[in-house]
């Protein structure tokens, strides 16, 4: 059975929190290595923005595994560290532009928290280029595609993220 992030607690092996991010199949000579990027997208702007990129049939890399959150303010910094620990090569957070948050100020609070997080991840030894935050509105499908493309290229150039030594 493939485990997903929604694995119920009872079926988890004891002593482990959550499950690993599944990597695309590796080791096939014909395919080059592809990074896994976990994206936390706010429902009201960026998720809709990604959707509009799809509706407009824009082509962009498919490396971002999207987690829909109600607001960028919902992103607990632990989610980000956990994603890296479970094998993400990059983490992208995307929300409404400052001033446009559906809950008025969620992204302003998030911004302070994520700024601190950014510096801290580097302090812990994670390359800051692997962690990005962007503001993408519902109508900015173009910007979304651009963000994904540039982040993928950057993380691809950096190579696989160093392992954080998880047992899982």
């Amino acid at each position, binding site marked *: 059975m493939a485990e997903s992030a929604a694995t119920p607690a009872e079926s988890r092996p004891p002593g482990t929190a959550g499950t690993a991010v599944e990597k695309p199949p590796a080791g096939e000579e014909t395919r080059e290595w592809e990074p896994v990027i976990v994206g936390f997208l706010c429902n009201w702007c960026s998720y809709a923005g990604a959707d509009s990129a799809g509706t407009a049939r824009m082509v962009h890399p498919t490396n971002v595994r999207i987690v829909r959150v109600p607001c960028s303010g919902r992103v607990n910094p632990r989610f980000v560290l956990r994603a890296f620990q479970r094998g993400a090569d990059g983490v992208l957070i995307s929300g409404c532009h400052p001033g446009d948050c559906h809950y008025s100020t969620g992204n302003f609070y998030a911004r302070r928290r994520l700024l601190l997080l950014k510096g801290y991840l580097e302090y812990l030894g994670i390359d800051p280029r692997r962690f990005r935050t962007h503001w993408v509105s519902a109508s900015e499908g173009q910007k979304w595609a651009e963000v994904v493309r540039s982040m993928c290229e950057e993380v691809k150039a950096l190579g696989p993220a160093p392992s954080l030594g*998880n047992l899982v």
Partner: protein
Amino acid sequence: MPNNPTLDKNMTETETALRREAARLLSQGEVAVFLGHEEGWDGVPVPFAASTAAEAGRLVWNPLSAPHLAKYLLDRLEGDEKVGIVVNGCGSLALDRILKDRRFPRERLHVVGIPCSGMLDPARVAALSDEERERVLKDGPVDPGLFLDRCSWCDVPNPVVSDTLLSEPLPVVRHRPEYPRVAELEAMDREERAEYLRGLYERCIRCFACRNVCPACNCRECCLDQWEPLWLGRATSPAEQQMFHFIRAFDVAGRCIRCGECERVCSVGLPLMELNDKFLKDITELFGVERPHIPADVEPLGCFEPGDPDLEDHG
């Protein structure tokens, strides 16, 4: 070093005054219990709750009265009896942290304040020879390296919360906090630093003493103890250790009073302030909060400015 801690020459008188005040509060029924220190093992004071005037006679105040007491208030949340507590400068910051986090009602407190010019680190003093220790504790002079780290940067000698002061307030010289250990770590290259921190996590035995002593770690239910959601796996893998230290430091970011109690009580002597200080330093640099360790009505992560640095520019 921005501060020159010294030992108060009148500590014996202060101790007598403390016992007298605590006995008065208890016998007149103004407080039901008084939180202070009593003589512990090896002469190091340990936290003590006196509940009668006679017990107040066991209270001590000396150069090793380092342990903060405010956290013990959380054991007394139930009921409506009044609690007395003794604090020096940094002890009052710990108390203020609990008050500003609205975890204990101010009305139920009677705070006895003692202006403080420096306290010794019990572990450093314990390492001295018997004669040395006696000399240091009697009449000095005291090597500055024997003081608690927090005394070297303290600019809050006088309690910020108090109902009674046992001696005259001391002159205050304000200075900007400095974070030399963080600067050193920041100067290392990334892999080297990651390796160094891995070594730190590996030695941690997850006794939770650092969390338990911390005045800013004061939630009713701690996420580190929760099973569902399981924020912290029980395995002591490097990743879970990293997550533990991340949660412990990040969740007090913006509320840490830089008391260094976590580091002082660590069972295996880990330099935990290297993790806390990074946030304090960044909060000043990013949000312009000059003295982030002083409890404020609104904490730096509980507010924002529309003109805060933008994340998109930060990559």
